[in-house]
C-alpha cells in the first residue's frame, strides 16, 4: 500500500464544521458567510493573501472571537459561540502567529503548563508533592518528555524560552500545544519568519505530528508552495470571502484563486 493510500485511509468523518460564519469589527467585515469543514486526521490549510481573514477564522474556531452570525459545530455539538476554555477543554489546541509563550518559564515548564487541563490532583497534594500529586507530576513529565524527544528540543529543556531563537520558540510553542494531547491542532502561520531550512524542519514536524499522533491539523499559511505539499485539503479566503475549497490540485487550477493571487480583477 502506498504512503498516499495510507494517508487517504487515515482521514475520517467531519470533526469540525464552520457554518455560515460572519464576523465584523465596527464596519469592517472580516469574515463573510464562511462555511467549511475539517475531517478527522487530515491536514487542512486555510490560505489567502494578507488581510483575507485567515487569523480571524482561527480565532473564531477556538473562541477568541465570537462571530455575529453562524456557529461552530465540533464533534457533533453546536457551539454558539465557541469559548476559549470550551475549545481547550474539548481538545482544540493552537499556536500563534506572533508566538505566545510564557517567556519567563523554561521550555519544560511551558509544556507542563500545556497539560494544565489534564491535571486532577488537589492543590494540597500538588503543593506538598505527595500521593496523587507526585504520581501525576511524574506521568505528565513523562508525556512531556516524549514530546521533547519528538521535537528534538532536549538541549533547551531548561532554558527560559525568552532566550531562545525564533525558530526554536516556534517549536516549543508547537510542543506546548501537543502536550495537551489535542484532537484538533490549529497552527497560525507556523512558518512565518523562518528561513528555508527551518521551514523544512517545521513541515517535517507537522507531517510527523499528523502521522505519529494522528492529530487533525488546521493551519494558516500564506506561502502557497509549502501548503500545497503539506495539506490534504485547502480553503482559500480573500477579503473575508471563501474563494475556493478542495484538494491542492483543484485549488491550484481554480480560476478565482489564480486571479486573486495574481491580482487580476474579475468582473
Amino acid at each position, binding site marked *: *500500500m502506498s*504512503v498516499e493510500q*495510507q494517508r487517504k485511509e487515515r482521514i475520517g468523518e467531519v470533526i469540525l464544521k464552520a457554518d455560515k460564519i460572519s464576523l465584523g469589527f465596527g464596519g469592517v467585515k472580516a469574515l463573510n458567510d464562511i462555511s467549511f469543514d475539517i475531517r478527522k486526521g487530515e491536514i487542512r490549510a486555510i490560505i489567502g493573501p494578507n488581510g483575507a481573514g485567515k487569523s480571524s477564522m482561527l480565532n473564531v474556531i477556538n473562541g477568541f472571537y465570537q462571530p455575529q452570525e453562524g456557529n461552530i459545530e465540533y464533534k457533533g455539538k453546536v457551539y454558539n459561540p465557541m469559548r476559549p476554555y470550551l475549545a481547550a477543554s474539548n481538545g482544540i489546541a493552537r499556536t500563534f502567529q506572533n508566538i505566545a509563550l510564557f517567556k519567563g518559564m523554561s521550555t519544560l515548564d511551558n509544556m507542563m503548563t500545556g497539560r494544565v487541563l489534564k491535571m486532577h490532583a488537589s492543590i494540597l497534594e500538588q503543593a506538598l508533592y505527595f500521593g496523587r500529586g507526585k504520581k501525576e507530576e511524574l506521568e505528565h*513529565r*513523562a508525556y512531556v*518528555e*516524549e514530546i*521533547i*524527544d*519528538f521535537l*528534538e528540543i*532536549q*538541549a533547551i*529543556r*531548561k532554558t527560559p524560552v525568552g532566550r531562545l531563537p525564533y525558530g526554536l520558540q516556534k517549536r516549543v510553542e508547537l510542543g506546548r500545544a501537543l502536550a495537551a494531547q489535542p484532537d484538533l491542532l490549529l497552527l497560525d502561520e507556523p512558518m512565518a519568519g523562518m528561513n528555508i531550512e527551518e521551514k523544512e524542519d517545521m513541515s517535517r514536524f507537522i507531517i*510527523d505530528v499528523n*502521522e*505519529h499522533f494522528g492529530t487533525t491539523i488546521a493551519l494558516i499559511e500564506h506561502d502557497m508552495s509549502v501548503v500545497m505539499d503539506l495539506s490534504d485539503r485547502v480553503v482559500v479566503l480573500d477579503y473575508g470571502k471563501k474563494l475556493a475549497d478542495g484538494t491542492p490540485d483543484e485549488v491550484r487550477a481554480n480560476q478565482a484563486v489564480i486571479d486573486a493571487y495574481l491580482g487580476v480583477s474579475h468582473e
Partner: protein
Amino acid sequence: MTSASDYPDIATYDTFPKLLRYNAQHLKDSPAMREKNFGIWQSWTWHQVHEEVSRLACGMASLGLKRGDSVAIIGDNRPRLYWTIAVAQSLGAIAVPVYHDSNAEEMVYPLKHADVRMAIAEDQEQVDKLLFCKDKVPTLECVIYDDVRGVREYTEDYLHSYDSVLEMGDAFASANPGYVDGEIDKGKGSDVCIMPYTSGTTGEPKGVLLTYDNLLKSAYSGVIFEKLRADDQCLAYLPIAWIGDTAFSFAQSYITGFCVACPESSETVLTDLRELGPTYFFAPPRIFENILTQVSIRIEDASAMKRRMYHYFMGVARKVGVRLLEGEDVSLSDRMLYALGNILVYEPLKNVLGLSKVRIGYTAGEAIGPDIFDFYRSLGINLKQLYGSTETSVFVTIQPDGQIKPDTVGVPLNGVDLKIADSGEVLIKSPGIFYQYYKNEEATEEAKIDGWFHTGDAGFLDEDGHLKIIDRAKDVGKLTDGGLFAPKYIENKLKFFPEIREAVAFGNAKDYCAVFINIDSEAVGNWAERRGIAYASYQELASLPQVAEMVKAAVEQVNADLAGEERVAGSQIKRFLILHKLLDADDGELTRTSKVRRRFIAEKYAPLIEGLYSDAKEASIDAEITFEDGRKGTLRADLEIFDATRVSAPSVAQAAE
C-alpha cells in the same frame, strides 16, 4: 593501586566478545553503559549488555550473518550501536563503522568497498541514505534500524527493526542453543575485528583492517599507562567511526570495565557532560578552544565583581596552577591563594564545564595552542597530549603525569618502537600496527615497510625522549647543508606570539631559513595605541620601526628555541620581513580554512624572496589586491629586510635561561 592483575588476562580473553563474557561474570551488575533518554539517565549493567548482545547476535545469525562478513554501523553515539560492534564480532564478522554525517553519495564508497552485507542504522535519516545506497551496493542484503520513528511506514522487506531482530534472536536461540558461545570461542586474537575508514587528504578513503591483537594490545598498554579503573567513566560523543572513539569508548571499556555514557543528543553534550562528570575525557583541541571561548564570553557578561574575581584568580592559576599540577615547589602564600581560588573560581568553573572529576584528559589530532592547553592545566585538570592514528590503533605516545610539555606528545608506550627516518619521518613498530589496507596492497606496502609503519609525520625525540611532531613529512624539506627544514613548525612557533598573525617560512633547498611575517592588526594596534604611536593604515602600522623591533625580538626568541633542538637548530631564521598587507583567502594566499598556500605565495612574492636571499636591505613589490567590492587594484610597497641574530649551538644553555 591498580596493577595488571586487576585486568583480565588479554592472552586468554583475546577478543572483545570474550572480554564481554568475562565482564558479565565478574562485573555483573556494575554499569557498562549509560544513556540519557527522555531526560533521565538509563543504565545497563555488564550482565544486561551481554544478554542483549547475545540475543541480537542470534537474531543476526538467523538473518544469515556469517564469519568474515562485514557489517556497517551508522549513527550517532547510541548504546545499541556500540553493542552491534560486539554482535558482529561475536559471529566472527567485521564491524565497519561509517561516518554518520556523510551524505548518501559519500556513503556508497565505503559500503561498496567493504562488501558490506548488513547495515545497522540509527534512525530514519540513516535508513534513507542506506535505501539510496542499496542498489549501488550489490552485497548489501539487509538493514536494521534502531529508532522506529518515521521508518514504521517503510515497506521494504529487507528493513528490520532492532526489536524485531531481538525477537528473531530468541527464536533462533531456542532452536540452536549455545550457537553464539561456540562462535565466540572460535574467535582468536589474530582475527580482523574492525575496519575503520581513514579519510585521506587525497584519493578515496582507505579501509584499515585491525585485528583483535592490534586494538586490544594497544588499548591495553594505554590502560596500564594510565592505570584506568572499573569505576572510571567517559562520555562517548565523538563519531563512532573515528578510531579514537572505538579505542576509548569500546576497547578500553571492555578491558577495564568502566562505564561509557552516551549523550542525549549531539546538541546536549555540554549539559550531559556537566551532569555526568566523567573521569576520563577526550576532546580535540577545537573543542577545548570552543569551551574556553564560551567561558570568556560568559565572564564578560557577568557582574563586575565576578569578572574581577575571575581575572584575578586566573592570574594566580597561570602563575602557579601548572606548576602545582606538575608537583613542583610553590611558595606557601601562592599555595594558599590557589586554594582560595579553587573554592571561589576553579572548582565552580570546572563544575559548570563538567570537568571537575576528570582524572585523565586527552587532546590529540592537531597541535593545541599552549595558552589553551595551560588554561585547562592551570585549573588543575590533568589534560595531556597523545599521539596515534587509525593505522597504529591509536596509542603510540602519551605524556606521562608530571612530565607535561606543551609542545611534545609524550613518550612511547610499552611495546612501541619508534625511530626517526633520515627524512625526519616518524616510523613506528608496535602490536597496534594495522594488519593491512583492505583491497589496497599498494598502499599497504607503501605504508608498512619491514614492519615499520610510516606515519607521514615528521618529528624528533627531545632530550627527555619525548616525541615532538613538527610537520607533515611531505612538507618537510632540507637546507643546502642537509639540515632539516620544517616550515610549519617554525611558523607555529612564530604564531604563538600574539603580535604575529601569520608567518610563511622559506628554506627548502636554500642556504638558510627566511620568513614573511604578518602582524596581527588588533594586538599590534592596541599595543601602538597604548604607547601613543599614531598610524593610519595597516601598511603604516606594519612599517613602524618599533613594530619591527618587537617582531625581531619574537624571531630571536624562536631562534633561541630552535637552537635548543638539535634536529632543527640549523633552520634558525636568518632574515625576515614584515608584509605590508594581510594574507587573504580572497587573494588566493590562504586556503578557505586559513592555511597558508606556501607555493602560491612564493611565486606571487618572488621579488621579496629574492631580496631575502641576497644582501639587500630593501625589496619592493607590486601586489594585486582584491577590494571588498570585488574590484582589483595594485599596491606597491617597499619593504625593509631585517637580519635576526642566530644562536649557535654551544650557547644553548644561556638561551634557555
